[in-house]
């Protein structure tokens, strides 16, 4: 191959920065100037600019790592909790009140912990084939649980001991040149990351894997290692950021890194990376981080306003500050994420700017990319289930059902409870207390089953529950509305959330996990915003009837039942349980026996085949999202009636419980499977596990903080069992291999 002249090639396009970065920089400048104009006292100083860079540093460092993961077409939701966990572990290792290790030992152990988390994430999504969002979401929840468990909800400080180690702790402080060392470290990591991603083989391999993993594999690129490597980089970046925060603050609180994954993912996506993989630049991500941090600061700092106060008949102008209440920042960041995610596929990839420019000059538009075949949607069912024909008896038929596991587990767990506490477990009030806990989860699960069966996911159910509850509570308490209006408004708010989920997922064809993740933050933020972060309580009892026992309702209407079995049942059965059973019955019949239910399964099983068969898959998925939001909304309305108050943490971790319940109950994370009976049994399993973990056996009860760690473990186990046992039929293959020393039929592609 004779080398030809390179002159004809022209200049190679720049890889480090592009037009997007220039635009971001301009936007950043405008945003900052806006901040200066609105609030000169805060933004107008060099100190403020320095603070912006310092705060960007830690987010930016994590964004550098996240860029690698997102370019790989993966997602790492665990960075926020990794950041928090490493900071907490460092505190526990280093603080004199705990292990009192040296600084070097502590740092090394923290780096090992970060690497271990990255490795677990990487192995889960590559070797074990769990979808990235569900694997890393579980790691996020487990990490958060560990943070609470290790701190007992308390802050840990070690500022005295920190003085003995000036070298390490100086990393988080201002240096002799007058700026914080973190900025220096951030700059080094950003430049290093930018060069690696844009100019080395590691970076090229990342782009190839994100663009077309199969092609990359054929070309001899070790795609599993490329993806694991990105998770390692991401976790280690979060570790570095956590150590810098330890060096700066000389202490830790359990709130470190809460919802940082949102900030970081929003940064990377605003920086021009595509959530669909294959595109992204480190410099863009860093600028994105600066934009997000600045927006965050502007929102938190508030606007100076002049308030007129009347004192003794005299009007006095008082300068005050309008700050947004708690939760508002989260709402804006969530919105930013959802909007930013739309930018790449709809503006950049469709060359809107270039087309507009050509149109202005009257030139023909640039050639459009062929987007037709690009699958924007998420994963589809992989592998067919080989029928396990155990026997034709009823037992064999039952065991072959996908929901058999959940039903057996639920029964076994209940018997375990009976064995542990025979005195207390088999007790009408305990049984119905469990049933009550069960009701909320089961109600959410019913709706979620539709979404998962249709091949999507809804991560926002817990947050929508809170939003609906918060809205109803706001109308009842603050506006003094009557119960019917409050219920209507709660339904409206919840359904609006469902509409946004459905519109972004179905209308804009974005992966469901990213759209509902945005809603997860938006709805929770709105819920906290409405009630200003406080607990609302004390409204007319008429509303609370939604969450009362049947007997209480009868008494409310001055009907008293005669003594007897009827009355004792009415004294323990709640109206919400009856309602839940009605909803479940209806939903179960629709899913199992009506054409709509079959359309849901068809859509989840193979969306393209379903569309070819004339099914309006968009409508099916839309309805599923709306149904899921409706069920979560009803759960929220009942929740505040039952507790007679709204607590901003209502429904927290419920998405975890609900997804685990559906998967345990026979649903597949890849869609196409799931029954209401299975989901109800799955919800029973989760409820019973929570109840079992809470019961006091001979004076020992599991601490509350550890329970979420445990449930997270169950979710990931359920997903893995679904993928490997139900879908890939690993047991069947093993059995076949043992029996015949021959693999099961793998059909050739003729």
């Amino acid at each position, binding site marked *: 191959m004779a080398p030809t002249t390179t002159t004809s090639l*022209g200049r190679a396009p720049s890889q480090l920065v592009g037009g997007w970065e220039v635009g971001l920089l301009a936007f950043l400048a405008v945003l900052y100037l806006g901040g200066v104009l609105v609030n000169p006292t805060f933004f107008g100083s060099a100190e403020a600019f320095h603070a912006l860079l310092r705060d960007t540093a830690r987010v930016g460092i994590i964004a550098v790592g996240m860029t690698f993961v997102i370019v790989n077409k993966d997602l790492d939701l665990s960075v926020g909790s990794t950041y928090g966990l490493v900071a907490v572990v460092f505190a526990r290792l280093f603080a004199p009140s705990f292990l009192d290790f040296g600084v070097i030992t502590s740092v090394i152990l923290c780096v090992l912990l970060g690497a271990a988390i990255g490795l677990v994430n990487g192995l889960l999504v590559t070797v074990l084939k769990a979808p990235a969002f569900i694997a890393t979401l579980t790691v996020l929840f487990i990490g958060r649980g560990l943070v609470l468990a290790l701190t007992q909800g308390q802050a840990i400080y070690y500022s005295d001991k920190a003085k003995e180690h000036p070298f390490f702790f100086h990393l988080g402080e201002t240096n002799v040149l007058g700026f914080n060392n973190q900025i220096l470290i951030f700059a080094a990591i950003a430049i290093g990351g930018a060069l690696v991603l844009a100019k080395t083989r590691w970076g090229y391999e990342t*782009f190839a894997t994100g*663009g*077309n993993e199969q*092609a990359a594999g054929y070309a001899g690129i070790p795609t599993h290692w490329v993806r694991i490597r990105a998770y390692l980089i991401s976790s280690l970046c979060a570790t570095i950021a956590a150590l810098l925060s330890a060096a700066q603050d000389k202490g830790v609180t359990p709130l470190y890194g809460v919802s940082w994954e949102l900030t970081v993912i929003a940064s990377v996506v605003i920086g021009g990376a595509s959530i669909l993989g294959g595109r992204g630049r480190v410099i863009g991500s860093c600028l994105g981080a600066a934009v997000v941090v600045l927006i965050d600061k502007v929102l938190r700092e508030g606007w100076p306003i002049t308030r007129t106060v009347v004192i003794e008949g005299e009007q006095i102008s008082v300068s005050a500050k309008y700050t947004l209440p708690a939760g508002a920042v989260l709402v804006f960041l969530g919105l930013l994420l959802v909007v930013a995610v739309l930018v790449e596929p709809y503006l950049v990839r469709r060359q809107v700017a270039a087309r507009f420019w050509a149109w202005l000059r009257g030139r023909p538009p640039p050639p459009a990319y062929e987007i037709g075949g690009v699958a924007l949607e998420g994963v589809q069912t992989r592998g067919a289930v080989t029928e396990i024909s155990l026997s034709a008896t009823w037992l064999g038929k039952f065991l072959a059902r996908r929901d058999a596991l959940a039903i057996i587990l639920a029964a076994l767990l209940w018997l375990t409870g009976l064995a542990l506490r025979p005195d207390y477990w088999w007790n009408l009030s305990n049984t119905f207390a469990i049933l009550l806990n069960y009701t909320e989860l089961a109600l959410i699960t019913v709706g979620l089953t539709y979404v998962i069966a249709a091949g999507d996911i809804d991560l926002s159910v817990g947050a929508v529950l809170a939003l609906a509850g918060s809205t109803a509570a706001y109308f009842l308490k603050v506006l003094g509305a009557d119960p019917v209006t409050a219920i209507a408004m709660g339904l409206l708010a919840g359904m609006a959330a469902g509409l946004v989920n459905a519109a972004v997922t179905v209308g804009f064809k974005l992966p469901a996990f990213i759209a509902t993740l945005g809603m997860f933050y938006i709805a929770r933020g709105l819920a906290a915003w409405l009630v200003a972060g406080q607990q609302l309580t004390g409204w007319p009892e008429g509303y609370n009837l939604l969450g009362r026992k049947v007997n209480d309702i009868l008494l409310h209407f001055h009907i008293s039942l005669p003594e007897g079995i009827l009355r004792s049942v009415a004294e323990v059965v709640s109206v919400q349980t009856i309602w839940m059973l009605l909803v479940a019955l209806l939903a179960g019949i629709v899913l199992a026996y009506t054409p709509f239910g079959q359309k849901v399964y068809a859509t989840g099983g193979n969306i393209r085949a379903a569309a070819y068969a004339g099914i309006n898959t968009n409508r099916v998925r839309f309805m599923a999202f709306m149904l899921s939001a409706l069920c979560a909304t009803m759960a929220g309305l009942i929740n505040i009636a039952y507790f007679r108050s709204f607590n901003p943490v209502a429904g927290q971790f419920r998405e975890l419980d609900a997804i685990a319940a559906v998967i345990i109950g026979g649903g597949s994370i890849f869609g196409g499977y799931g029954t209401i009976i299975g989901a109800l049994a799955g919800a029973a399993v989760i409820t019973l596990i929570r109840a079992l973990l809470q019961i006091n056996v001979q004076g020992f009860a599991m601490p509350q903080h550890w329970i979420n760690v445990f449930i997270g473990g169950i979710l990931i186990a359920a997903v893995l069992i679904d993928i490997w046992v139900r879908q890939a039929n690993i047991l069947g293959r093993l059995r076949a291999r043992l029996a015949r020393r021959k693999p099961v039929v793998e059909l*050739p592609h*003729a």
Partner: protein
Amino acid sequence: MPDALQREPIVEMRGIEKAFGAVQALRNVDMVLYPGEILGLVGDNSAGKSTLMKILSGAYQRDAGEIYVAGKPVHFKSPHESRDAGIEMIYQDFALCGNMDVGQNIFLGRWPLKGLFVNRRKMYAEADSVLKRLKVDVNSVYQKVESLSGGRQQSVAIARAISFQPRVVILDEPTANLSVMATERLLETMLELKKQGVAQIIISHRLVDIFAVGDRVMVLKRGENVGDRYTSNTDEREVLEIIVSGTREHALSADEARKS
């Protein structure tokens, strides 16, 4: 190809057997390929064409039989090993990364290095020369592959295969998704390759294409070789007849068919 007999075959497969569970995909299949020859591999669906080629490229492992490349017995365990022996398979799909440019795709997975960094100057210069050698015109090696038409993408995939300097190129249904114009261009590219002495195997349902460029056509049916003809002394009607009703017992080799 009259002088084929005097030359040593570049690829020879003898008595290949392959079963998938209970399904016998290939039964005692023989195949020869000479340097610079274009062999059309035809047959109904599930006749075993792709399986045979995947065995040759090392994607599948054979149950029995021998493979010789340039006279030496080989046993490829993966496509990477067959690539080292000069055999390149071009897959129908999944071959390119749309988000990367033409040059990056041609050197996918083996980007030249200069120190720690990828040597872009060398990469683009060599990509350009490969494309020139193939006489395919893409506007620029900097163009993203997803912005190219289907035919041009196919050309980039072939250019990528050529850049390994292969002795044998296998094309699996290369014209299946192409327009008439793009097919014309692809066939020209194949003839250009042939001129450079590269042997090619083309799996296709479109007999027209095989007759346009092929030297010889081999028919598989239910995993068996049921006939072999030179394109110069057969026609589409006869080949179709063999596809539909050919049997192993009545199979003739290309040379036998020419003599009769």
